């Protein structure tokens, strides 16, 4: 798998370049727009959930007396967006490249990964905003470095699921709408808008669902290293990496097996 990915790097890059060049070509503010949506969401959610529902964020790692709901919320949002962005984008790629796949023979996953490369740039922009937020709050720590493997795991997780679903979506066009609804539900079943401790006080089944949600593991790890500036147990991060890699490997294998006749399917 790795060898295959490496051999096709030029093609992946070519698709990435195409998507990069065309994504915001016709809008003046270009990349700025891509930040507008998450920042607007952040603003609305932060206002509603901290002021109306009075949800308390846990104390900041640098100063246990202070909290920042916005920073807490954005940490979770960035992680979740990385997952859902890759997943949704990957899922629609086969269709949008259908014209090409029906006429030229090349590995069908290359346009998918190319699109993902561009999506990662968007995530990087969000990360910069997040880091700026923490710098402004003075909440800085060496544990930040651990965010890198966590985000890699998240990306592989999202990409793996995206690859699996892309073939299904090519066959049944309504899958993407179902997935959209599921993602929306998952957003609220992941401790993004509330700390995990808040769920523990509610119904047991709800807490069980939230804890069984793999996204909770990734988001919680990010909360720890970025917000609380603590280090998770030693096995957490390797575990997340192995999990992410396993899902990606499975997605890639399933994709390759089921996309052999993609030229006929589209």
């Amino acid at each position, binding site marked *: 798998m790795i060898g295959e990915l490496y051999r096709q790097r030029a093609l992946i890059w070519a698709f990435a370049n195409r998507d990069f060049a065309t994504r915001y070509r016709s809008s003046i503010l270009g990349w700025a727009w891509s930040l507008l949506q998450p920042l607007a969401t952040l603003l609305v959610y932060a206002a509603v959930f901290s002021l109306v529902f009075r949800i308390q964020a846990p104390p900041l790692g640098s100063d246990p007396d202070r909290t920042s709901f916005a920073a807490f919320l954005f940490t979770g949002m960035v992680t979740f967006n990385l997952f859902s962005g890759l997943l949704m984008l990957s899922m629609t790629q086969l269709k949008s490249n259908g014209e090409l796949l029906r*006429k*030229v023979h090349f590995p069908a996953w290359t346009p998918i990964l190319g699109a993902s490369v561009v999506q990662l740039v968007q995530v990087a922009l969000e990360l910069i905003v997040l880091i700026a937020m923490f710098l402004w709050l003075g909440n800085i720590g060496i544990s930040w470095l651990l965010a890198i493997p966590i985000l890699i795991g998240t990306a592989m997780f999202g990409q793996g699921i995206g690859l699996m679903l892309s073939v299904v979506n090519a066959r049944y066009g309504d899958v993407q709408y179902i997935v959209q609804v599921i993602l929306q539900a998952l957003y609220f079943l992941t401790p993004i808008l509330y700390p995990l401790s808040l769920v523990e006080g509610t119904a047991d089944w709800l807490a069980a669902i939230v804890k069984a949600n793999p996204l909770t593991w990734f988001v919680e790890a990010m909360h720890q290293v970025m917000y609380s500036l603590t280090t998770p147990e030693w096995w957490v991060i390797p575990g997340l990496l192995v999990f992410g890699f396993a899902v990606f490997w499975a997605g890639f294998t399933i994709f390759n097996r089921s996309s052999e006749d993609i030229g006929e399917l589209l």
Partner: protein
Amino acid sequence: MTDNFAVELDNVGKRFMRHADRRNTLKERIVRGRSRSTQDFWAVRNVDVQIPKGSVYGLIGHNGSGKSTLLKLITGIYRPTEGTITTDGRVAALIELGAGFHPDMTGRENIKLNGSILGLSKSEIDNAMETIIDFSGLREFIDDPVKHYSSGMYVRLGFSVAVHMKPDVLLVDEVLAVGDEEFQRKCFDHLYTLRREGRTIVVVSHGLGQLEGLCDEVAWLDHGTVQEIGPATEVIGSYLQRVNAEEAKANAGIAATRDDTTMRAGSGVIRSTSAKLIDYQGDSINHAETGTTFGIEVNLHCYEQVLGPNVRIAFQHETGPLVTMMSNHRIQHDFGYVEGDKTISAFLTDNPLLPGRYRVHIDVFDHTGSVLIDNWDDALEFTVRSPRGEIGQGFIELPYTYDIR
């Protein structure tokens, strides 16, 4: 696989599932289960074809005979349901030109992207870039988004990219019919260049005249199976025979008016009964060669004695234009009184017709040249080939001289 073949198809078959009602949404799939009324449909079957390296190979057949499916199998877009396909070297397809072009990207960016999709490395693309731009003739517009291109420009750019991939095997599907006259010629010249370089070309086309000039070997497909494989002229000949026979059967009425002498226009005192292609000695031939004298032999039946009839033999090129007409009146050859059965031979000296397919119309007029006696359209159809193998420009070669001072 021996080293002599660029593409080898061994008992290849491709089956498509024809869903009477395809389950396109999850709901339908869940509610109604797997669709039951699937029918097997073999697009091609039992195909054994060996394409020698460095040859130009043609695929002919009626629409839906499986030609394009075969090309898609060779490129790998489809996988064969049975049998094996072995290809040697890089395969590039001119199946749909410019398929990968993104409308918002410039011509230059699209060349890069298309090159990568077709399997070129970055340095290979950079090396070929200028040649591709020159070949396309679109240098002026190369940095404009291709959405502003005309459809012709689009195709030119696509063709330019594909042929500069330096493919070992180039698959061409009906794309030569695009672009203007000048660009088409350029494409043909380029195909000949590729051929000289020892690359293999597989062509699908309905332009039988073009194919005959270009191809070494031709395979004729009919309903997904191979009917005949062999030298281009022979196979195209038998294909045409079949097509004509079927057309005659299908258009029984129309054919009757054409060939049935009683249904023809004109006074009818003379009827042309048969016509054939002959060489300068009067022997039957099945094609003519540029530069070599050949003739048309026409059998006439006169119902009455007629004075000095005018027999006109017109040649029409496959693309439509009437190229030339032979007339005994024009060369002051008076037949005098004719009666009974007569055989007329008209020879075209040093045949100036350039390669292509021609249709022959035979008309008979009275001695004044103004009253129609018999009109026989499409009496004959034949191919002109060039002994040197090249395809000329235009329809006829006139005598000319050159001088340099």
